[in-house]
């Protein structure tokens, strides 16, 4: 093959460095190593090739490149006969992350459950903690709160073991806070979210500071304290995180209307509605339109809300079907239109 021992060591070392760069989200370093490793791909034995493709899938996941992630996983799977259990674990974990990232939580759970069959093969407790955190996050979005609570407790147990893991512990505590919101235990929800926020602020992690401020805003909106929510939502905006911008603007618009600040509400509503159009985010477009009809355009309230709920049913957005149906049912019940109220109360149970 014309390779000597030092070549072997270089490839192994490069592979290790690549793995660390991916875990640390160092995109530049990971790209450089990827380019270098790709030159040697024909020299890899099967085991190294499988490891390469599995790392490569995580590398593309880091870049939000779903297409290449899937290609890397397919490439890895062509050598399935040579897989050992650790390979199987990381294959299924990557598949789970891929579907989670696309918002397909049911499929993500399926692959995480496959990965769990091989979790005994892991010798790094951080990997085990990461797995439980990912599974807890998936259950959270599937509204299976009890199992999310269970897996987040298992993740927290791992991450409490070392000061070095306090960022991961804070992520877990943020999730635990959100589970407490779903369980209507608002005092503990506040405590966990504020603890997570303190850690993120200490580490100057702006993205997670924004996420936690948004979540605190959600908590106070649910407690019917819109005036308390507003400063947290404005703080969340400071992070300029495009990924959660529409969620923040939507809640802020609602809070301004609820606290009788219509001019501020309209200003934020226009920004949010425009941004939802630019992002072609149909869900948020409907949410903003429905909010506007609720407070400003009562003449079109019923028809737009009915159409909006139809849309959410069509895209299987269960959370929004329940949320908006409950309010519309209450509206019809208050107006003694009991048949149609019944229709929407039933939808809250879907």
């Amino acid at each position, binding site marked *: 093959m014309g390779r000597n021992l030092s070549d072997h060591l270089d490839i192994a070392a490069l592979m290790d460095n690549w793995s660390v760069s991916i*875990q640390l989200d160092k995109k530049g370093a990971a790209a450089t190593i990827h380019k270098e490793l790709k030159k040697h791909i024909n020299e890899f034995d099967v085991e190294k090739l499988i490891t390469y493709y599995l790392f490569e899938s995580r590398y593309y996941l880091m870049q939000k490149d779903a297409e290449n992630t899937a290609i890397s996983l397919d490439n890895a799977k062509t050598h399935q006969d040579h897989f050992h259990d650790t390979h199987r674990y990381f294959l299924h974990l990557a598949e789970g992350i891929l579907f989670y990232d696309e918002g*397909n939580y049911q499929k993500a759970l399926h692959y995480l459950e496959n990965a769990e069959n091989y979790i005994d093969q892991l010798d790094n407790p951080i990997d085990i903690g990461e797995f439980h955190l990912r599974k807890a996050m998936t259950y*959270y979005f599937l509204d299976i709160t009890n199992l999310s609570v269970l897996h987040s407790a298992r993740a927290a147990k791992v991450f409490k073991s070392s000061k070095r893991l*306090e960022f991961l512990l804070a992520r877990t505590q943020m999730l635990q806070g959100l589970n407490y919101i779903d369980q209507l235990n608002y005092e503990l929800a506040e405590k966990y979210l504020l603890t997570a926020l303190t850690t993120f602020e200490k580490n100057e992690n702006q993205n997670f500071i924004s996420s936690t401020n*948004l979540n605190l805003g959600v908590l106070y909106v649910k407690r019917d304290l819109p005036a308390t929510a507003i400063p947290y939502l404005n703080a969340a905006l400071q992070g300029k995180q495009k990924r959660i911008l529409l*969620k923040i603007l939507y809640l802020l618009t609602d809070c301004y209307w609820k606290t009788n600040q219509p001019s501020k509400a309209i200003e934020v509503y226009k920004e949010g509605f425009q941004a939802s159009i630019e992002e072609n985010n149909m*869900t948020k477009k409907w949410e903003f339109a429905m909010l506007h009809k609720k407070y400003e355009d009562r003449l079109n309230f019923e028809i737009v809300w009915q159409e909006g709920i139809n849309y959410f049913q069509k895209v299987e957005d269960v959370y929004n079907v329940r949320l908006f149906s409950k309010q519309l049912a209450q509206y019809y019940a208050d107006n003694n239109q009991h048949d149609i109220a019944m229709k929407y109360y*039933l939808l809250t149970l879907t």
Partner: protein
Amino acid sequence: MKKVIFSLVLIGTIVISSLVGYANHHGTTEKPTDLGSAVFLLEILDK
């Protein structure tokens, strides 16, 4: 009278639903909260 029937039907529906359970595991669900990026994780180890 209509209101009484409505209330009875509604209570009946809620009771039956709570007995059989109605956890729905659909493909998409949009919550207003955020858990941060899905692709993490271990940046803290760098500090």
